[in-house]
């Protein structure tokens, strides 16, 4: 079994995240770039399968600028075997359509039985890339899966929706995305961290891939506005009557 985990590097949600007001594109200098935590959970799904199936080949795939290497090394230290990094200046500011086309081309070039992604990144929160890639490759997708069962020929799981869950399955090859209900990733051990330095990261540029020419629609950003910072209002120290005062405040604002 060859499993590819899609890796996205994102700005740390515990930092102040910024957009460039001129372009609307992420300001990568503003905050620390880390591997998205939902990606770590996707990786854990693959790692736990590999624990009991030693012949599993586990490959990481990411698209992004040079610093993405750090996130790939982290994934390698956790137990992935190798990584593929699609890196090209022409991909700066790539929209969803373009990103899906490039990832689909890189997946085809790498080969796989199963692709595992997070259900949505903490920055864009679109959650559409796995299904877009599946459509490009004419494969089934199982997105927003809480729990996964992987066999040699198929994948099944519980899909979480706003209204409940669905029990779903698909034949491999397939593309899945997992939710925050999937287990947290293990801690890297010393051996993993040392070993990661020797594991290969293959860097691919656009010219290495056969990406379909851009004949489709693409999104353009028209304007980016910063919301004014929220000012602090009234702050009182409870002297035994704060609950009553709060009720008065809420009543004055017609909130109760």
């Amino acid at each position, binding site marked *: 079994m060859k499993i590819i985990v899609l890796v996205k590097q994102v700005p740390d949600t515990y930092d102040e995240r910024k957009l460039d007001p001129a372009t609307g594109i992420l300001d990568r200098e503003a905050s620390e770039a880390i591997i998205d935590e939902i990606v770590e959970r996707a990786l854990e799904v693959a790692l736990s399968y590999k624990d009991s199936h030693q012949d599993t080949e586990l490959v990481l795939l990411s698209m992004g600028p040079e610093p993405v290497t750090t996130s790939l090394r982290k994934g390698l230290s956790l137990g992935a075997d190798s990584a593929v990094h699609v890196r090209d200046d022409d991909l700066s500011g790539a*929209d969803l359509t373009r990103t899906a086309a490039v990832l689909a081309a890189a997946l085809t070039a790498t080969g796989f039985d199963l692709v595992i992604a997070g259900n949505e990144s903490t920055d864009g929160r679109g959650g559409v890339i796995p299904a877009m890639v599946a459509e490009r490759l004419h494969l089934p997708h199982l997105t927003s899966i809480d729990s996964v069962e992987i066999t040699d020929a198929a994948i099944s799981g519980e899909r979480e929706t706003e209204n409940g869950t669905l029990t779903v399955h698909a034949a491999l090859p397939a593309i899945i995305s997992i939710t925050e209900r999937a287990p947290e990733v293990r801690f890297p051990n010393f051996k993993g961290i040392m070993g990661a330095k020797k594991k290969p990261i293959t860097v691919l540029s656009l010219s290495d891939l056969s990406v379909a020419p851009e004949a489709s*629609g693409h999104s353009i950003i028209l304007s980016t506005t910063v*919301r004014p910072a929220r000012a602090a209002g*009234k702050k009182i120290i409870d002297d035994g009557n704060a609950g009553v005062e*709060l009720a008065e405040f809420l009543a004055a604002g017609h*909130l109760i």
Partner: protein
Amino acid sequence: MSNILTLIEVSSTGELRNTAPALLAAAAKLGTPVAVVAVKPGTGAALASQLGELGASQVYVAESDQVGASLVSPEIEALVSAHAALSPGAVLVAHSVTGRDVAARLAVRLAGGLLIDAVDVRLDADQVIATHSIFGGAYTVEAAVQGGIPIVTVRSGAIQERAKSATPTVTVVPVDVDSGASAVIDAVHDVVVSSTRPELRDAKTVVSGGRGLGSKEKFELVTQLADALGAAVGASRAAVDAGYVSQTLQVGQTGTTVAPALYIALGISGAIQHRAGMQTAKTIVAINTDADAPIFDIADFGIVGDVFTVVPQLIEAINARRH
């Protein structure tokens, strides 16, 4: 005016999902609203009058035996069929688990462009423009699609307008579904809503608790205030990680994003991760023992105090006002 397709999601028992009114209202702002439904043969006509009340000028019923058996592909084929028949100017779907899968695959099929998680839409010189709220409302970004049909996913609860009711024309067509590239649905478990509390995502008032509540048992205080206010219950990530409540109640960057009229934060310090999920609330109230908690920086009314003395007094005062 061009036709604007909306994908109306339908439950396994044939009820319209609650995202339908906002989708049709958004479509009415852009052109002629067309409701597209994918149903099992013979079950769509019953939906037409309901969709007309919500503003659909036309109801396009796509019938397939694969509905409920093949994951999202009947819905995609329904839209592909309606697209071929009606040459729409845009396609709108809910930013739901189903909706975004449909939007994703449809964008590739139609060589369209995606505008994801829109909080509003408008038409400007025949161009569909979507408004996005980024990083928990820290930025507002307007975007459009060039070179293909715009496919827009609309955030649940974001559009409060409603379209004028209409008497729709009804078109019923069969669609072929290639189940080869689709996952199979083995069973559907719709949650029966047993709680009378509003849903977190769409609630007008939200009461959230944090680590400051101290234990799962004491988190009950949050529930009591929520019930006194008819509010939804939320929680910070710290409270979820501590096991006080389930992850489904988490408000924040990695949970639900809420924008209620009133947000009350109890024992929540207000890490940036949490603020990203609630800072667009109209009024924010915070109660915390730590006077330096960052939540006070964004609170309209802050109380430095113990939630276990302030909140019972607040509940009593609310009840007193009711009588």
